C-alpha cells in the first residue's frame, strides 16, 4: 500500500537513524530536492546533507492526518499535520506539511518539502 510506504519513508526522516546517516539521506533525497522550512527559509539538498548529521538532539515528532494525492505516474503528494511533543505530552510548533515523492529506479525519493505553521487543532480525533 503506497500510503503506508510513503508514511514510513517520510517518518523515517523524523528520526535520528536516518538524520545522522548521510548515505541514507543521499538515498532518500532526490538530486533536485529542496525544502521551504516553517520559518520560510529555503534549504537545498546540500544544506540538508550537511546539517542533519550534525544535529545533537532530535525532537519527538507527532504526526497525523496523512493523505496522498497522485500528481502523475510515480509522483505523489503526501500531506499531513505535525507537531513537536514535549515530555509532558504537550504538543508545540504545529505545522502543516507537504512532500512530493518520486519513484526512481532505486526507490522513492523526496523531491520537495514545504512546512507551514498552523494553530493547534481544537477538537478533532
Amino acid at each position, binding site marked *: 500500500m503506497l500510503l*503506508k510506504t510513503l*508514511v514510513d519513508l517520510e*517518518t523515517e526522516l*523524523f*528520526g535520528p*537513524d536516518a538524520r545522522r546517516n548521510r548515505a541514507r539521506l543521499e538515498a532518500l533525497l532526490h538530486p533536485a530536492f529542496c525544502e521551504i522550512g516553517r520559518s520560510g527559509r529555503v534549504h537545498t539538498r546540500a544544506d540538508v546533507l550537511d546539517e542533519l548529521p550534525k544535529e545533537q538532539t*532530535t525532537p*519527538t*515528532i*507527532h*504526526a*497525523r*492526518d*496523512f493523505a496522498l494525492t497522485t500528481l502523475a505516474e510515480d509522483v505523489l503528494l503526501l500531506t499531513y499535520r505535525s507537531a513537536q*511533543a*514535549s*515530555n*509532558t*505530552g504537550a*504538543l508545540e510548533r504545529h505545522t502543516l506539511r507537504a512532500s512530493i515523492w518520486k519513484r526512481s529506479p532505486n526507490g522513492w525519493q523526496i523531491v520537495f518539502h514545504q512546512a507551514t505553521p498552523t494553530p493547534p487543532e481544537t*477538537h*478533532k*480525533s
Partner: protein
Amino acid sequence: MIVEREAIRAIVLTPEHEVLLMRIRAPEGGDWFWITPGGGLEPGESVEVGLRREMKEELGLERFDIGPLVWRRQHTFNWDGRRILQREQYHVVHVPGFDPRMSDPVEAKALDRFRWWRTDELAQARERLTPISLGQIVMRYLDQGPPAEVSDVEVLVD
C-alpha cells in the same frame, strides 16, 4: 537497525468512564509516561490471543470481551538498547473497575504504578499519555461510539 513489531493495546474502560493506565519508563531511565495495557504480538499470534495473553500477564484480567478497534498508531522509540518501530492497534475493553495485578516480571521492572483516570483528568495530564490524544479518543468513543473505519495512522518518533 530498527526492529519492527506489531502490538495490541486495550483502552480498559469502566461503566463510570474511568480508563486504566500504567506509569512506566524505559529500563535505561528517562521520563515517566503513561500507557494503556498491552504489548507486542508473538510470531503468528492473533490479535485476540495476544490481547488476552497481555491482559492476563499485565493485569490478571481474564474474563472480558474485546470491544471495537478505535485507534491505530506507530511509535519509534528506544527501549533497553534497541530502536523499535511498533505498529499498534487499540481496542476498547469494557469492564467493571478492578484491582490490577502485574505478573509479567519483565514488565514489572518498567512499571511504577497503575492508575484509573477519569476522562476529564486525561486532558490535564502532566506526563505524556500514550497515545498523546488518548483523551480525545476516549471522549469521541463515549460521544459517538466506535469509528466506522480506522484508517488514520498517528505517528510518534522519539
